[in-house]
């Protein structure tokens, strides 16, 4: 399959959204709103839920499932208040020892006037910094579009998974083509060159595993057929989260934070040789 086909599937409006994942993988969901600093951002959806008898904090981008919801949720493009709300929920999860599961699906952080005025850059940076120190397990699942810093802002996780047809990239293929070739129409070519599919990211060592979408990825799937196939997808996600949490069972809070830190410190290790790491002694 061509990379651009994955891009189209990842963005498909009928693809399951965060509300579907929460409804089908968790129980007893209690939504939490607000950044407690004066704003609420519906493009980040989250709260506390039960996962096999264990409380967890779950949150992610919300694009909405119809036009009305799309508008309310700003098509899943958070402002700084969204990232601050996410951080509030995550810090609270840490306090109560709840694992954190995030669902990533965004065209990017919102490039708007207010977003800039209230510190979009600073809000994302604050999340990256704070997430690197969280003392509870964090699991991120890229379910649709994982675009730019807007995706990463809730994806600094101990385990990062991608659905088979999800994409994860530094920018949208259109943006990439526009910046490098001054021609956003070359998106198909950009998608190929960018290496943004789940397989590419697994090869880079940026993600830990791919969650299969066998039978569910394509938007043309008949509704009923899709219904049962989606159930299989939710079961696979459940299984992946269960396995990840089992891995951190009995680990100290410090070692959990440390594993995450080391993961990102060395995320590009294969592109650097160890020689460069010893040169610091020269000065």
């Amino acid at each position, binding site marked *: 399959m061509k990379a651009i086909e994955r891009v189209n599937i990842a963005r498909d409006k009928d693809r399951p959204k965060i509300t579907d994942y929460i409804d089908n993988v968790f129980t007893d969901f209690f939504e939490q709103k607000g950044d407690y600093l004066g704003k609420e951002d519906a493009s980040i959806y989250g709260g506390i839920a039960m996962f096999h008898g264990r409380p967890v904090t779950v949150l992610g981008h919300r694009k909405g499932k119809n036009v009305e919801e799309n508008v309310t949720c700003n098509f899943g493009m958070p402002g700084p208040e969204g990232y601050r709300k996410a951080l509030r929920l995550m810090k609270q999860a840490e306090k109560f020892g709840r694992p954190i599961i995030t669902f990533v699906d965004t065209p990017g*952080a*919102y*490039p*708007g*006037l207010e*977003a*800039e*005025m*209230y*510190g*979009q*850059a*600073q809000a*994302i*940076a*604050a999340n*990256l*910094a*704070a997430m*690197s*120190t969280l003392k509870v397990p964090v699991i991120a699942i890229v379910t649709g579009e994982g675009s*730019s*810093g807007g995706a*990463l*802002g809730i994806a*600094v996780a101990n385990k990062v998974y991608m659905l088979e047809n999800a994409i*994860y*990239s*530094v*920018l949208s293929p259109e943006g*990439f083509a526009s*910046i*490098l070739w001054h021609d956003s129409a070359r998106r198909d070519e950009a998608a190929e*060159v*960018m*290496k*943004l599919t789940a397989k*590419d*990211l697994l090869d*880079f060592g*940026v993600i830990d595993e791919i969650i299969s979408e066998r039978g569910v990825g394509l938007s043309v799937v008949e509704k009923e057929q899709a219904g049962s196939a989606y159930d299989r997808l939710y079961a696979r996600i459940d299984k992946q989260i269960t396995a990840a949490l089992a891995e951190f069972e009995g680990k100290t809070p410090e070692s959990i934070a440390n594993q995450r*830190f080391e993961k*990102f*410190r060395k*995320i*590009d290790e294969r*592109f*650097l*040789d160890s*020689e*460069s790491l010893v*040169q*610091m002694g*020269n*000065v």
Partner: protein
Amino acid sequence: MVNVVDQRKSKFNRYKNLRENPTELLDAVIKPVQEYGVRDRVKDIADEGTFKEFELKFPETDPLEFEGYVGKKDELRDETDSHDAIIAGKCKIDGHPVVLAIMNKKFMMASMGIELGETVCHAVEYAGKHKLPLIIFTASGGARMQEGILSLMQMAKTSAVVEKFKQEGGLYIAVLTHPTTGGVSASFATLGDITLAEPGALIGFAGPRVIEQTIGEKLPEGFQRAEFLEEHGFVDAVVEREKMKEVLSKILKLHCVK
């Protein structure tokens, strides 16, 4: 005080007049900056002869095997006197030993790829190991597109390392210079214990053109400029280039516990 206001007014007017012609605007803003290079900065900030650059050796990073990328870097190395878009080392500022890193926008607009991210991390870790204050002069167009997802990962990597340094008691002063945008603004640039900015510097996550396209209107005067960020509570002080060393020296002095 009046002086400062006047200066800002004239600056804003200049931007306003040039707004109709973005190329001119870009030239007006970037030209003086290009004349003032990273080595000039070292001269202005470090005590004479004290800057010792870290000797880091990097393999060529080209994770996407992007056409023309390696060749372009080679060319720029000759032209810009830096191996990638940053130089880092240790030096003294009025006798205070510090780690100093300066981003070099002549090198691909100081976009952040693996090498730049790793250099930042080395600088931070060196400062942590030797209990030195860390000063980074930031400037960047954002992520290094040519390195794809690995350039995005530099945001998480540098932020984690900076956060660790700060939590272990390190002092990090970020100095935002023109322009500091995209992935660099949304990572280590905005994580300083103290944040300074140069007058008129463009600082933001999204570039002005992208925002204008999104909202379908022109941005107000001075939007995303250093003074705007100061007014909105994201920088401690806007400091002119001529006063930068003096201010840094004062901050360092205020952190000396003897």
